[in-house]
């Protein structure tokens, strides 16, 4: 086991070194160009625009760019298509951008795009998803494992024993997998009295609705729900509970505890009304801010070291050698739902 891990680690490091080596000549060529311009345009790639989270990220990008003094091109949307994302990166590179801030759809399928950028000597900051390999200046990401754990701890402490269901994201996506695994294993080790049921809903509202509808028939004693994406699952979950007459406000003994994930304004409303208990706020504003901050730093040739940062997060070195700034993701409950610093309170619906 350990042996294979060491070997894998060695292989990863070696390939990282090799990759870095491959790109070095063109690196310097690109570097001199960039050095003269000091700045230049930055391209920003979005994975999709059909979720409230990415819409608000998209809104934050120009604001934060102004604040950080970064000159950006209009954002590019890959519309959930990893192949399109590679094409988008190539197009941006052809427009002679000097830096890229990309939110990869897939941790593996982005590598070809990263290699293209490296060949042109253009630094890349990855947002939300850490690439498996390839060269990036920094990964800006909230820890999705921590999302699942936070939800698990909150639900676990609240209900102690009984049945909970997690409405999962797409298990073919790293974020869906991380949240699912973290929630499941945290429940298993910390709250053995709790039984975890699962609905693989692929980030789709109708799958969440029909799955929950079916499960509630067989499990009338359900005590808790973890929705891995409030933006998509909030409405169908409430609708399914309503149709079964199982929606009770927090405080009522028959209330089913619900923890969500995302932190959109509608979830905050539901928390205020007592329909759901908590949500893990995924920091859209911080993604945009630190994504642009790091790309500016990388274009100026700065490098970073693992360790605590000055903005409440920690930079860690991933096994692949990539640095990741793990931003904090606050748990929002009735107590702090009106906090002005939460991104969900700063955007319109």
């Amino acid at each position, binding site marked *: 086991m350990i042996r294979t891990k060491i070997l894998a680690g060695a292989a990863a490091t070696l390939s990282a070194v090799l990759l870095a080596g491959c790109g070095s000549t063109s690196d310097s060529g690109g570097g001199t160009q960039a050095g003269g311009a000091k700045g230049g345009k930055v391209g920003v790639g979005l994975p999709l625009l059909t979720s409230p989270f990415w819409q608000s990220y998209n809104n934050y990008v120009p604001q934060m760019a102004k604040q950080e003094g970064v000159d950006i091109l209009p954002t590019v949307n890959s519309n959930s298509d990893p192949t399109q994302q590679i094409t988008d990166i190539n197009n941006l590179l052809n427009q002679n951008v000097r830096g890229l801030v990309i939110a990869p759809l897939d941790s593996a399928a982005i590598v070809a795009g990263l290699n293209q950028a490296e060949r042109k000597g253009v630094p890349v900051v990855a947002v939300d998803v850490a690439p498996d390999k390839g060269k990036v200046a920094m990964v800006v990401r909230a820890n999705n494992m921590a999302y699942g754990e936070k939800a698990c701890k909150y639900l676990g402490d609240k209900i102690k024993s009984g049945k909970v269901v997690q409405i999962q994201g797409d298990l073919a996506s790293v974020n869906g997998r991380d949240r699912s695994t973290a929630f499941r294993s945290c429940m298993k080790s910390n709250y053995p009295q709790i039984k975890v049921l699962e609905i693989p809903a692929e980030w789709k509202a*109708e799958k969440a609705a029909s799955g929950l509808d079916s499960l509630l028939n067989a499990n009338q004693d359900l005590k808790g729900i973890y929705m891995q994406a409030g933006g998509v699952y909030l*409405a169908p979950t409430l609708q399914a509970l309503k*149709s079964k007459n199982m929606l009770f406000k927090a405080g009522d003994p028959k209330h089913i505890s619900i923890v969500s994930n995302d932190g959109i304004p509608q979830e905050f409303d539901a928390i205020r009304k007592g329909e759901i208990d908590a949500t893990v706020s995924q920091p859209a504003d911080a993604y945009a801010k630190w994504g642009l901050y790091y790309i500016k730093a990388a274009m100026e040739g700065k490098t970073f070291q693992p360790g605590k940062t000055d903005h409440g997060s920690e930079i860690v070195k991933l096994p692949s050698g990539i640095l990741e700034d793990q931003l904090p993701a606050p748990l929002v409950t009735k107590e702090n739902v009106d906090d002005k610093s939460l991104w969900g309170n700063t955007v319109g619906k």
Partner: protein
Amino acid sequence: MTQTVAEPRGGGGEAKAAGGAAGAGAALRRMREFTLVPALIALVVLGAVVNDSFLTERNIISILGASAALALVVLAESLILITGKIDLSLESTVGIAPGLGALLVIPAASAGFGTEWPAFLGILAIFVVGGLIGAFNGFLSVKLRLNAFIVSLAMLIVLRGLLTGATEGKTLFDMPEPFFSIATTTFLKLPLSVWLAAVCFGVAGFVLRYHRLGRALYAIGGNPEAARAAGIRVERVTWVVYVVAGVLAAAAGLCLTGYVGAINANQGQNMIFTVMAAAVIGGISMNGGKGTMTGAITGVLLLGVVDNLLTLAQVASFWKQAIYGAIILFALVISRVTSGQAQE
């Protein structure tokens, strides 16, 4: 549906000719209708064994409620397939029709157009949009004689894009109650959406079997030239089928909106694969001219039962898709074996 019945004015003689063509295979057709029943029974028995709550009244209502929207789109697609065409864009109509209806109603603060129409007008608009999309699809494929498969694929993308553009990708939450009531109001314990689907299937089944317009669909799907020679107004009838299908898809969209409680810009996305699966395992021929409403509805119920069963049984979530697909495959084989005839 009423407009359908009133539409064509072909003479009685021609209709008889069309009816005769379909009547020749009547016995076979009747077999075909029930080929899926053994598979359905097998699954229900399996379900009852696997989970105590599977055969409860509550759970059966859930299965029907979850299948209502799918049933309406399968009905729409079946009518088009029987006529010998195909319309992939129905899945996008399921999203854009209620989407536009909602945008006209909800205030600008919730991402609406700001027109703030009263709710009933918005719901009316949903059906009008569905009908118009159907009419446009019909225009492309009937009048311009474009290939139905490719042109509806293009329309699928266009309509999906229009919805994403009009909503700016946002999920629409703040619709007034009437937008949801079709799925939340119940009559004799069943949601209205289930009744709507049942009535639509009943009417379509009756028209297809006994009315000359219905028989004209089989005639056109079987051999359009022969149908034309027999005096059926092929273009006009096909066009009407497209419009009806658009309206049905819009109704499905409204049911789904009520069921989910919001309209996501992805509403209905990838649904067409399930629709095709349900129609084909229900015995609707992809080549046109064959298939019945009884068959189509058993196809829908089969998929609804399988999905419910897999959730109740809590099969490992990574494997659910594979098992779902395998069961569809199995159902196809069973229906092939029990009917004893080649599938087209």
